């Protein structure tokens, strides 16, 4: 066995490898099962809009719960305590915003992707292209932390070099996407939500049982601050919440799922179920973070905070039971990387193949390859930050670019293509600039640069509104028709109720 020299592996290597192989096999089997019914043209993109709400909601949950949720939230809670609780709250509340402002109108727009929506609403090819660019950037930025998570997991649990983890995820994802399109993805994602939930819940029950037998936990230990980090100020928390609340409604892989609902009302119902699923899920990473803070604060000092979910079962349970539980969480972690990455790759491939490659199946497959290969290269040359933190920045970018176009496009007749382009460019440059500056400055980054959403999001909105006002004549003549279509219920009048 070749060890990578990146620290000892705390889990039996065979456990990690078996867990990964099992998840991959399950993914492949379900993907193949879905493949057989993936026959018609529409299947390839949006699963024909015939997926029942529970399946669909599980699939949305499965796709959304990424490395950041599965590993990062607990890691961040271990590091910074109650301040980090805002992450799961924001990830969930983002769906509330999506329900309130986006779900039904976007479904009723009848567009397949965000660029489709922009083009239909603004009647402009250039606005479409700028949106596509933003979508591709968001997608790539979001895949990178997934691959970092996979690298971390493989390194911690098998001792193999980091690149094996990220490469394995990319290979599995590309094969699944290329073979089955979206229909099989829906089944795979739904399965992976429940896998992720079980993979956290079962070991946690065992951990709590063990802890109970060893005496009641000292509650005061939760106040232990293992890293000595200063608590976040109100600005940081508010800016983070802005990013998460507004970022969620612009995530391309989340939005594409709404087209699989038969109508606007069921899009809302699906979102409500998703909110329930997410609320239940996030109790578990929170519990892991709290337990880790109480009983394994050493992980934070050792710089292994993001691995707390992976390491806790082995540490606290021990023996064969501990290894079995470790295998469980490792499987769940890989489900998280696979599902989020494949969801992103599907939506990116959809956008790239339509805008660049002419929309054929061959183009879609080529685009899927490109969509996964670029972030893999980026993951190789960048370092993993705290997972939840780097995903938080992606949300900030989405909130500053795609979110304003969607919100204003759906609710304000005055939005013009010039306004949309100017706003997206402003938000993208400001937020992207802050991200680059933050990466360059490292630990010394001032708070307003490290957490930029609180000013980049209002700036993007302001520029979008002002430019639209200044270019009033460019409001498309189709506006009345489009707004009616977005907001009126679908049910045919003739049939009554």
């Amino acid at each position: 066995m070749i060890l990578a020299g990146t620290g000892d592996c705390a889990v039996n290597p065979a456990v990690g490898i078996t867990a990964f192989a099992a998840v991959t096999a399950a993914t492949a089997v379900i993907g193949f099962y879905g493949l057989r019914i993936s026959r018609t043209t529409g299947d390839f993109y949006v699963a024909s809009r015939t997926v029942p709400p529970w399946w669909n909601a599980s699939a949305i949950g499965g796709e959304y719960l990424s490395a950041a949720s599965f590993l990062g939230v607990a890691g961040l809670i271990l590091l910074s305590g109650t301040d980090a609780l805002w992450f799961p709250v924001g990830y969930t509340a983002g769906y509330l915003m999506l329900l309130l402002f986006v779900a039904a109108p976007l479904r009723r727009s009848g567009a397949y992707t965000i660029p489709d929506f922009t083009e239909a609403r603004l009647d402009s090819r250039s606005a479409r292209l700028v949106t596509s660019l933003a979508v591709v950037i968001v997608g790539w930025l979001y895949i990178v932390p997934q691959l970092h998570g996979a690298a971390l997991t493989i390194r911690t649990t098998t001792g193999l070099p980091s690149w094996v983890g990220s490469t394995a995820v990319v290979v599995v994802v590309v094969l699944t996407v290329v073979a089955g399109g979206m229909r099989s993805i829906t089944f795979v994602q739904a399965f992976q939500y429940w896998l992720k939930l079980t993979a956290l819940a079962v070991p946690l029950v065992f951990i709590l049982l063990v802890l109970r037998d060893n005496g009641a936990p000292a509650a005061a230990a939760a106040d232990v601050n293992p890293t000595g980090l200063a608590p976040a100020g109100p600005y940081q928390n508010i800016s983070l919440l802005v990013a998460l609340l507004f970022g969620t409604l612009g995530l391309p892989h989340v939005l594409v799922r709404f087209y699989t609902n038969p109508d606007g009302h069921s899009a809302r119902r699906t979102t409500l179920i998703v909110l329930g699923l997410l609320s239940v899920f996030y109790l578990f990473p929170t519990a892991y973070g709290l337990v880790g803070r109480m009983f394994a604060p050493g992980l934070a000092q050792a710089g292994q905070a993001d691995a707390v979910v992976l390491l806790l079962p082995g540490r606290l349970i021990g023996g064969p039971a501990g290894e079995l539980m470790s295998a469980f969480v490792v499987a769940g972690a890989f489900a998280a990387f696979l599902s989020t990455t494949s969801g992103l790759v599907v939506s990116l491939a959809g956008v790239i193949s339509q805008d660049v490659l002419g929309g054929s199946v061959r183009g879609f497959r080529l685009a899927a390859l490109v969509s996964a290969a670029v972030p893999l290269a980026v993951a190789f040359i960048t370092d993993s930050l705290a997972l939840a933190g780097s995903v938080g920045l992606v949300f900030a970018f989405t909130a500053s670019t795609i979110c304003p176009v969607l919100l204003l496009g759906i609710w304000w007749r005055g939005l013009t293509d010039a306004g949309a382009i100017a706003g997206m460019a402003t938000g993208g440059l400001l937020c992207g600039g802050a991200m680059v500056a933050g990466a360059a400055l490292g630990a010394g980054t001032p708070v307003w640069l490290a957490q930029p959403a609180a000013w980049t999001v209002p700036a993007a909105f302001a520029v979008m509104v002002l430019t639209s006002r200044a270019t009033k004549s460019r409001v498309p003549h189709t506006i009345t028709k489009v707004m009616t279509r977005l907001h009126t219920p679908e049910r045919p009048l003739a049939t009554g109720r």
Partner: protein
Amino acid sequence: MTRVRVTAPRSVARPAVDFRGTAEESAVGQVFVRSLIRSQLRLALVVAGGFVLIVGAFPLLLAAFPGLAESTVAGIPFDWLLLGAGIYPVTGISAWLYMRSAARNEARYRDLARDLSGDR
């Protein structure tokens, strides 16, 4: 295995097959549509505002009563319980209330639109 050629569904996917084409034609129809949009937006803003107020009140509550954060329930510190679990029910209830009211707004619009086309 049959191969299906996927052509890009680039524009808005399929034409509306329901009354949404006719109701919008008339000036009165547009009044209804605009009023529907306004009431849906108002509803969404009210729910979002209420949610943000409640969630914002949580940390203020903890700051105002320092003893509260230190008390424990079943061995779990109260502030953890409040932020880590207490916000989710608020989210769910907000979402459920919104969904009901939004459906009611749409039902009202549908009635109006039906009356309108019945009158013609």
